[in-house]
């Protein structure tokens, strides 16, 4: 063969190399679409957006910043929409609490009337007016019964003064912030309740996001931005407040070893190593995630950070979500962390950290292999069996700043974020956004778990087509009919309520746990359901996802199985309870044995 012929052959190979994968990917996408359609037939469900019809008329209003930050205000003021689920009056129906964020705007507590409609009772009960000028802006709320009186209390975290409200047996709320001794100001990104020392009283963990001395409403400096986009450690400090049992809390953060100053946006407390004590996973913006293992020390409990050795804290990304789920029905909790993926600009990919086995602290990222990697500029996500087929599905919301449809801020963003820290940490150096979008108008994802280790996005087929800037998502059975409904809080957009209609014939079981020796909310309890040769583990947690809290009860889909082999409950106190034949297609109210 002549040299020219060889070169021609090579050119053909080059062309094949350049465009062959394009053709392959296109064919693969068609095949995926086919499989999705098949999945829809197999895992039938539909979602119907009913917020307005249910009496929910809420549009989130964004924080207002100091004029010195005006050039990139939409980016800085891009958080604050949150949703948390609670049955605050113990009437057996899940209610919805959502935060607002502009000065003077009101939060809402939507009481579930049990007939498909909701009534806003926030003002009436005293938990609405939390955005008073000078006190900061609300960014999230998390409920738990901190005094074990049988009613869930409310903690609201802010870029500002945090607030704690005692639930007066469902008839109203009393502000107890000052009595509790909470910090005066935290630029919080996340918070959760956990009983870190196993004393039966729930403690409070709050994670700072912005540096502690920053006041975004009225700042003296424009140097408020992170000092790195992948290695920032100049964020807010963390707080672990120990419940002293008398309505007060004591700051034990440093004595238990929680010394992170990363930019935390999500936290989840769960028992990752099966030792019966809650550990902490922090999803950090501008850096690596952190996994703090709760261990016994000579002077009480200590948290040890093992992010890097466990695998979850090696590659720095933009963590914005932390939720857990037994995605493989293997009796082990995986962790889902959302990040940023924008075609051709920044393809971080979301992380699904799957442990090597139950209790293992070695994790592998299977997001790509399982098809839940690319969402967009992702925020909140929740695991839940949306179609009651026995496998946990995943609902993910995306979108950062939706501005003018024409043009976007990506070029300017990528230009400056690669620069030196002295340039990027000063907001005044940033190009003005001028109303442009940055990862705006992005779709949500409804990833159905095929049970074969792969997820399929069926959001469009299910009618989840809106493109508001999604922040928080929560799952709850709002109609007590055994299907998980979806509530989405959009930044600067309307609250969406997706009512879930599951194909008949899919069975389910739900558990509502009440602790006795353990905390009354049973936060930290683990439930293992064995049926049909498989086992699924779930844990009662407070905060889950981004700025969200799911219903307190645990929901398991069972597919077409009509019976359960065994249910094992491990209470936070360490007691283990076995249920041999719990009722399926029903809510099971379980009280911790004496």
């Amino acid at each position: 063969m002549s040299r020219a012929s060889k070169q021609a052959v090579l050119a053909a190979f080059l062309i094949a190399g350049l465009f062959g994968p394009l053709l392959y990917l296109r064919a693969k996408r068609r095949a995926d679409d086919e499989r999705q359609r098949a999945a829809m037939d197999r895992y039938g469900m539909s979602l119907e957006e009913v917020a307005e019809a249910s009496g929910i008329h809420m549009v989130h209003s964004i924080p207002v910043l100091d004029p010195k930050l005006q050039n990139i205000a939409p980016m800085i003021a891009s958080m604050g929409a949150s949703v948390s689920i609670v049955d605050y009056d113990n009437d057996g129906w899940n209610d919805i609490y959502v935060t607002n964020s502009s000065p003077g705007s009101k939060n809402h507590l939507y009481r579930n009337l049990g007939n498909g409609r909701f009534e806003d009772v926030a003002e009436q009960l005293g938990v609405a007016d939390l955005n008073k000028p000078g006190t900061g802006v609300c960014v999230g709320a998390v409920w738990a019964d901190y005094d074990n009186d049988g009613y869930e209390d409310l903690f609201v975290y802010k870029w500002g003064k945090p607030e704690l409200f005692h639930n007066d047996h469902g008839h109203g709320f009393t502000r107890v912030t000052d009595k509790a001794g909470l910090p005066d100001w935290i630029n919080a990104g996340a918070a959760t309740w956990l009983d870190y020392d196993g004393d039966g009283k729930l403690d409070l963990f709050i994670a700072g996001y912005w540096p502690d001395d920053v006041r975004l409403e009225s700042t003296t400096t424009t140097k408020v931005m992170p000092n790195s986009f992948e290695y920032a450690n100049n964020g807010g400090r963390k707080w672990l407040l120990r419940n002293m049992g008398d309505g007060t809390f004591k700051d034990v953060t440093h004595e238990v070893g929680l010394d992170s100053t990363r930019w935390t946006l999500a936290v989840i407390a769960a028992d990752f190593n099966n030792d019966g004590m809650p550990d902490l996973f922090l999803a950090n913006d501008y850096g690596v995630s952190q996994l703090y293992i709760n261990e016994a020390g000579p002077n009480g409990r200590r948290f040890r950070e093992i992010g890097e050795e466990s695998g979850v804290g090696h590659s720095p990304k933009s963590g914005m979500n932390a939720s857990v789920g037994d995605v493989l029905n293997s009796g082990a909790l995986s962790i889902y962390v959302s990040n940023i993926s924008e075609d051709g600009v920044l393809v971080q990919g979301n992380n699904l950290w799957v442990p090597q086995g139950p209790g293992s602290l070695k994790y592998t990222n299977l997001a790509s292999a399982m098809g839940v990697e690319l969402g967009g500029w992702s925020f909140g996500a929740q695991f839940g069996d949306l179609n009651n087929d026995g496998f946990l599905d995943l609902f993910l919301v995306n979108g950062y700043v939706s501005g003018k449809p024409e043009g976007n801020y990506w070029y300017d963003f990528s230009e400056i974020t690669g620069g030196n820290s002295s340039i990027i940490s000063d907001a005044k150096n940033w190009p003005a956004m001028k109303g442009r979008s940055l990862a705006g108008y992005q779709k949500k994802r409804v990833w159905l778990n095929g049970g074969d280790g792969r997820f399929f996005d069926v959001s469009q087929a299910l009618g989840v087509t809106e493109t508001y800037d999604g922040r928080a998502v929560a799952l709850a059975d709002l109609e007590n009919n055994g299907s998980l409904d979806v509530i989405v809080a959009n930044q600067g957009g309307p609250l969406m309520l997706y009512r879930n209609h599951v194909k008949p014939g899919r069975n389910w079981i739900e558990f509502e746990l009440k602790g006795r020796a353990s905390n009354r909310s049973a936060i930290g309890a683990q439930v293992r359901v064995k049926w049909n040769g498989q086992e699924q583990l779930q844990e009662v947690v407070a905060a889950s996802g981004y700025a969200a809290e799911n219903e307190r009860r645990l929901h398991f889909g069972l597919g077409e199985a009509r019976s359960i082999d065994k249910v094992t409950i491990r209470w936070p106190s360490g007691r283990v309870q076995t249920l041999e034949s719990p009722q399926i297609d029903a809510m099971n109210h379980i009280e911790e044995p004496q």
Partner: protein
Amino acid sequence: MSTAVASIPSETPTADNRVGWLSRFFSPNNRYLPPLFITCILLTGQLEFGILESWDRTLLAIATSMAMEIILSRLIVGKWPHLASAYISGISVGILVRSPFIWPYALCAALSILSKYAIRWRGRHLWNPSNFGVSAMLFLYPAAVASLSIQWGNTIWPMVTIWCVGSIIIYRLRRFHICASYVATFLLLSWIRSEVTGNTWLSAVAPLTGPMYQLFVFFMITDPRSTVSGWRSQCLVAALVAVAEMVLRLNGVIDAPYYALFLVGPVANFVDLAIGPRNAPQGARADAHPLASRAK
């Protein structure tokens, strides 16, 4: 980047036995020097900052690149190749490509080396191989691939380190003038861009202060096998790359530097080959560039 120095051939140590091993080691003729330096940069970046998606992906890029070099050299040239160039191309792909998937690393490395053998004119390749591969991947597969951007952090020390190390290497290779021309033009055009867009000059200059960009400046635009001959011509082409980049940047093209080099580089080489001293037999070009005569 990458083939910058890799294409510089070895010179037998007998050339001057009186020179000590240290001098020989830092000689521009030591073709193991550039791979060693870029390996040091890679190791420092990874161990300090975790810049890579993973070790195995970078190793895959390196292995693919070297395998392609061996196969194609045997098939086309009939010789066993020196693998320094392919090693650097592979490592470049491993650093510059950011993807959560594995396949882009192999494909990009393969395309880079393939382009070197498939697209030739008058016995020379026109594109810098890794620039070709990375640009093609960014253009054709944006959903799967992005370029290195913020993964090296934003602190001062990596920047200073790469400036120093890069300057030493490039100076020893007598190609510092290319970098200087490019940087000077970039700085000047940054001011023009900031005037046009209304953004601060610091934001326009910001990319240059990031370590990723310095890799581009030091290693990619200086590749001897894909730069023109003649000191002045090289400075001119470097400046033209910066001009093309400015045009792309003003149009919001995020990966402007790669595309600018992709567009300007081959045109310049084409013109150079058509009218320049490279028209002359290889040996005659020694005067045009001190390294060119030793290029493979």
